[in-house]
């Protein structure tokens, strides 16, 4: 009699232990990943050399988008790869039009990851890769728009073929991002600062940003631009105002 009770009880105990490990696998939530060209893309701006630039389309192709929980927090100035205690990755390639929508359009949702571990995702990496199809086929970045200066109007298409890897620290902005609680939703943002390419007339000419930017003049001379710029030096990718380590090839 005791043996008949003992064996089922032991089996039930073992089954409980197995279920405890399998069910849920820990607390999870949803993580959303956004791309943001900011007002420079949505509303246009004046370059450091006086060209008023407005974008119709800014196609950027993103791959290997990965979010990390790091401890200690990743320092992009260290110029090392990110080592995360938790790592989650989008496994697709995305061509995003950063100019999509009107002047007040929100950042663009690239994709979302369901049932990822909770915690603070405080680092992100991605590659700006050459598209293999679509409106940016063959290029990693395509900027289409108009530029005006002193009565002259130019329709331009600027294509970048360099592929760049961005390893970024924590988002810096009005609020912290990436803090995911059980059953909740958190977001992270890849921010693109196009004033770093063309400069900004609202800043002094000797401001570090303008000194590093190429302006629009090189592209004005060839509207279907073959102008080559060093994307590593442009520091296009950011996380809000936070920094990324960039390597282009």
């Amino acid at each position, binding site marked *: 009699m005791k043996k008949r009770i003992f064996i089922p009880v032991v089996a039930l105990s073992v089954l409980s232990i197995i279920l405890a490990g399998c069910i849920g696998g820990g607390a999870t939530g949803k993580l959303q990943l956004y791309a943001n060209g900011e007002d420079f893309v949505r509303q246009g701006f004046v370059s450091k050399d006086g060209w008023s630039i407005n974008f119709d389309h800014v196609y950027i192709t993103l791959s290997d988008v990965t979010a990390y929980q790091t401890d200690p927090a990743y320092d992009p100035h260290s110029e090392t790869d990110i080592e995360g*205690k938790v790592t989650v990755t989008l496994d697709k390639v995305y061509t995003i039009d950063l100019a999509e929508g009107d002047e007040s359009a929100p950042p663009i949702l690239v994709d979302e990851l369901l049932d990822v*571990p909770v915690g603070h995702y405080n680092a992100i990496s991605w590659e700006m890769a050459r598209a293999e199809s679509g409106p940016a086929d063959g290029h990693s970045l395509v900027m289409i728009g108009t530029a005006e200066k002193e009565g002259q109007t130019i329709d331009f298409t600027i294509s970048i073929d360099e592929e760049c890897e961005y390893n970024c620290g924590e988002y810096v902005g009005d609020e912290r991002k990436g803090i995911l609680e059980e059953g909740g939703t958190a977001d992270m943002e890849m921010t693109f600062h196009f004033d770093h390419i063309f400069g900004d007339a609202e800043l002094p000419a000797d401001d570090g940003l303008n000194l590093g930017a190429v302006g629009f003049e090189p592209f004005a001379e060839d509207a279907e631009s073959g102008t080559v710029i060093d994307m590593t030096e442009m520091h296009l990718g950011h996380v809000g105002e*936070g920094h990324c380590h960039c390597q282009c090839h």
Partner: protein
Amino acid sequence: MSKKLRVIAAIIGVLALGLVVPTAVYAHGVNIEYTSDVEIEIVAEYDSGEPLAGAQVAVYAPDDPSTPWLIGVCDDQGRFSFTPDTSKPGTWDVQVRLAGHGDMIHIPIGEDTAPTGGIGGYTQLQIGLMAACVVWGSVGTALYFSRRRNA
């Protein structure tokens, strides 16, 4: 009373003496306590060395990474000071922003540095199952030794 019980009773009696015998009382005593507060000073500069004068500062405590614990502004030299609450040990995060530029630093405070990221907690079901397993094991162990003693 067996010899073993006499020994146990003697030990208990000696320990009890420590509770009932009055200790000496000193009048006009002085108590001195100290607390050690840590002041943190940050200095924020551009890469050129120019200070981030007037930059916005937000300090986040380890126990609430979403809500600023303190908000302030850097002085003309890009300096900002604060005294963290040392009852909240862990990594304190300080964000500095000015005119589209910004950065964040992470300062460990206290004996242990609390992790900034988690690898996931346990659900209520998992906690319940683990507790039940521990209780079952304890009961089973007690019954086992009880049977051996009675055998």
